[in-house]
């Protein structure tokens, strides 16, 4: 019994992590900031109406102005902004030793990884156009997935 209650406490409060694990989570948090910047830029572009017109890179406008760029009327870029912010939040908490944040982080990154695979398929086979901002985001997600997979499960 005492060991069970101890484990619950450890899930909600901070525990000391090995230095290497803390560094990995700090790196994950920093990398997610790059994704956050990218997704924020695309969200602003969408809100300003730039994706509804042509100009700049035609491939980007083809991707960002397509029917696949929105889910239930919400721009995918806005969902991406929330996802990257969630990754940053969970990685920061995980770096400070919050156990539950590690699970949330792994689940979020896994969902993002699957979404990225879908959007790469859409660009390659349905739209036949690649947006460099979307590819940058895909690279960030793959990097985050690699780091999460490589992180030791237990402190």
């Amino acid at each position, binding site marked *: 019994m005492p060991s069970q209650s101890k484990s619950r406490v450890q899930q909600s409060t901070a525990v000391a992590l090995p230095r290497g694990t803390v560094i990995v989570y700090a790196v994950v948090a920093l990398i997610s900031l790059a994704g956050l910047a990218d997704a924020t830029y695309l969200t602003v572009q969408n*809100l300003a109406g*730039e994706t509804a*017109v042509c*100009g700049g890179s035609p491939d980007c406008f083809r991707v960002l*102005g397509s029917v696949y760029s929105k889910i239930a009327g919400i721009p995918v870029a806005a969902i991406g902004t929330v996802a990257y912010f969630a990754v940053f939040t969970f990685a*920061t908490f995980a770096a400070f030793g*919050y156990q539950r944040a590690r699970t949330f982080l792994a689940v979020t990154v896994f969902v993002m990884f699957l979404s990225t695979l879908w959007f790469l398929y859409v660009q390659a086979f349905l739209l036949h156009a690649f947006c460099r901002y979307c590819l940058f985001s895909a690279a960030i997600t793959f990097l985050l997935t690699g780091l999460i997979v490589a992180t030791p499960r237990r402190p």
Partner: protein
Amino acid sequence: MPSFKAIKSFLPFVIIGLVAALTITIGALLYRAKRVAAVTMSEEQTVAAQATDSVHARGSADAPVTLEEFGDFQCPPCGRLAGSLHEIEKDYGTRLRVIFRNFPFASHEHAREAAYAAEAAGLQGHFWEMHDLLYREQANWSKTKDVQPLFTSYAGMLGLNLDRFKTDMSSEKVKEKVESDQNRGEALGVKNTPTIFINNQSVPPTSLNPIALRAAIDAAVREKKASE
């Protein structure tokens, strides 16, 4: 004096809060910078537009509302808007005059040739027919490597003199017309297509949809009535 442990417990909240605040602030600043400022044509620019003989206009010259579009035939949003605009033109009848200006982007492989095709058709009095056909068939010719045979076949469909069409497409007159449209757009600060001016006032990109355009035209009609 708070202990190191106490600082460590609220530090993640501070970091996350700072990043959230920074993201919102930068996003808001970027949005303000990106939002296209409304452009109003000067009287000089309006007069210059009216004076041009070769302007492609559809609708009554006495219409209370003039909608001037800068478009690129290979731009998908322009293609999507063309259908809606056609419906709007039908519904507003004599109350609306539509002007089309070429603004082909270099990044669109065949946009300039398409503009030349429309202008060459215009020299035989069929600009708007070619304009509508190019937008309707945009998905087909945009993917083609050599568009010339396709454009010639479109000219054939419209009953144009094909030899003259081919000669006109590469003529200086047609090139100058496209150039002059583009120069006018650049002078007005056009950066994207479609860019629309309603009674010399630019329409923001977020309003380039049938509902918002109808609302803008209605407002322009009311304004015109009030000023008379």
